[in-house]
């Protein structure tokens, strides 16, 4: 295995006496997309900020592109790009002015800047808006402009904090398209997201919950951690199905969806006929039972369900 592009060991950051992130350890290989996945307050932003050199850590080690970020945060800044969660560009500057500003901060030559800007803007479908004020762009466009500015100096590592939150699905797909093409070019990407369905797009995942690391590995490895399989029972009244199936053998959990009931069972081959019999005996109509792929959220919820009570910070 080659030298990791990002190496984090036992990273801790405290705030107001509470650990915002506790003991994170993970690595990201060159050309890999690592997804930092978790709900609000999981520590995603803090982790990315530390790796971007804009926030100090309390202890642990973090190396990015062979530089020690904790001891010399400035050294890493010319080879990485960090895009904060909230639009960090100047709304009173035009698209072109923003691009030029960031290009010059990273000492990109004018000719190289123009060529790269043209490519990136075309890839984002933003070529017609070069003279528009950034503040007058739509949400999705602002994110894309942020990405263009972040990429203008061809960084080795890209740190993106929730770049797709609230963005429309079409822009979101374009953004992922750009990320994949970067990764094919050898760029390493760390991206945080609160969308669990988006996690499947990453090569490797770091699941965070309340500052702790629940999991680090590939999506496939993650799904292997869920005991049993997820079944979908199509029905217009899933809530009644759920009531009827309560206490069935081998049933680990049941969740009513909009037009189906999702159940997790330990041995699908044995349980499907059992469930079918039970529902028919209760005279409940359903539209067939199919095995569905477990989602990252399924596994996350399963992991969190085994955590101790976390009702309040001060119980």
């Amino acid at each position, binding site marked *: 295995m080659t030298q990791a592009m990002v190496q984090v060991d036992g990273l801790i950051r405290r705030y107001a006496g509470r650990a915002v992130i506790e003991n994170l350890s993970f690595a990201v290989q060159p050309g890999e997309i690592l997804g930092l996945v978790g709900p609000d307050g999981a520590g995603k932003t803090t982790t990315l900020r530390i790796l971007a050199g*804009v926030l100090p850590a309390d202890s642990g080690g973090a190396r990015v592109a062979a530089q020690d970020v904790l001891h010399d945060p*400035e050294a890493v*800044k010319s080879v990485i790009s960090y*895009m904060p969660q909230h639009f*960090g560009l100047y709304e*009173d*500057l035009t698209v072109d002015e923003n691009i030029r*500003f960031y290009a010059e901060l*990273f000492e990109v030559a004018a000719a190289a800047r123009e060529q790269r800007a043209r490519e990136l803007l075309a890839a984002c479908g933003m070529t017609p808006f070069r003279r528009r004020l950034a503040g007058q762009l739509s949400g999705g466009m602002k994110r894309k402009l*942020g990405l263009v500015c972040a990429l203008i100096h061809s960084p080795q590592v890209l740190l993106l904090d929730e770049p797709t939150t609230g963005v429309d699905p079409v822009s979101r797909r374009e953004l992922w398209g750009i990320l994949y093409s970067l990764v094919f070019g050898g760029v390493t990407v760390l991206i945080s997201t609160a969308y669990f369905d988006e996690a499947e797009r990453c090569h490797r995942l770091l699941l965070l919950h309340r500052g702790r690391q629940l999991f680090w590995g590939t999506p496939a490895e993650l799904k292997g951690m869920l005991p049993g399989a997820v079944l979908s029972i199509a029905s217009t009244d899933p809530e009644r199905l759920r009531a009827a199936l309560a206490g069935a053998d081998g049933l680990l959990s049941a969740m009513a969806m909009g037009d189906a009931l999702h159940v997790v069972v330990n041995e699908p081959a044995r349980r499907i006929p059992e469930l079918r019999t039970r529902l028919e005996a209760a005279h409940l109509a359903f539209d067939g039972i199919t095995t569905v792929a477990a989602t990252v959220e399924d596994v996350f919820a399963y992991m969190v369900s085994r955590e101790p009570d976390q009702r309040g910070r001060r119980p």
Partner: protein
Amino acid sequence: MNWRRTAAIGRKEFIQVRRDSRSLLIAVLLPLIQILMLGYGARLDADHIPVYVFDQEGSQDSQALLKRFQASRYFDVIQVVDNYPAITRAIDADRCKLGLVIPWDFSERLNDAHRTAVQALIDGTDDNSAQLAEGYAQAVVEGYSNDVQLKWFAIHGMSQQAVAPLAVDYRTWFNEELESKNFIIPGAIALVMALMGALLSSLTIAREWERGTMEQLIATPATAMEIMTGKLVPYLVIGLFDAALCTVFAVGWFNTPFRGSVTALFVTTVMFLIVILGIGYMISVATKSQLGASQYALLVTLLPTSLLSGFAFPIDQMPGPIRAITYVVYSRYYVTALKAIFLAGAGTRDLIPEISAMAVYAVVIGFFATRAFRKSL
């Protein structure tokens, strides 16, 4: 320090000021309004102040002094009385603002080369006009005493050149018409610089925090020094432009004399702006909010500049402890320099004490300003 990055930050800041109507207002319109208001508002001059005189001596010398009061357009000697209570009664009854008491040994002491004094009783109910009356009276007396001194030296065979009194207030010495307009306007430039510079620079860093652009900026290789320099140079340029604008207005519109050197004006203005911008910048770094920053900025720049710099209230007339405080008010040196440049025709070399004092401030504030901002959340 990387000049390319610094220039990029400077250019960005310029564009932002140009597009932000509020900044533009502060940068261009505010100085104009201020100088106009201060220029017109400064017509504090009161003339024909009614004077009662109690001349205890009635000599030629005392008459000569009285004539000077008569000749001045600021005073009208209404009545000569022969007792002290008459003066106090007149003041109480608001028949006069100033009572002048010339002692019985006035000419005797004068001719024996003793120090002598005349007593001035001033109606202090209106602080401002009292101060003016006092100032004018002092000027008249000083003018007189000057002549007497010179005459005395001449009689005793001393060269005039050698003994010409040096330490006389600029106000009376170089502002012969005793016009407060001339006294106010050069100092007003300091006020304009302080207000404009502090307001604009206090917004720069706070604005980046408030708009959420700081996080991305500190994630770039730009150093704290480059960010500071890039952000402040545009305001230095705007400040110099404003200083030029104010000077042109002062001379062209208000007919204030400009007798000194432009270089001296340039050097002192740059120094003053460095201090003001540095202070505004540090406030901006510390408060992180535009509203808070601008309030603090006004407090620490405008207030001392308007009250303790000698801009409107002559420092030599302040009580001792307050006068001592003015020595640490950086704008005092700029105001002094401005008045000297405009009225006394001072050049760079004449202002070495003021320039040195401001240089000390510039270095100290520059030192702290460069360390104030840390590239961290």
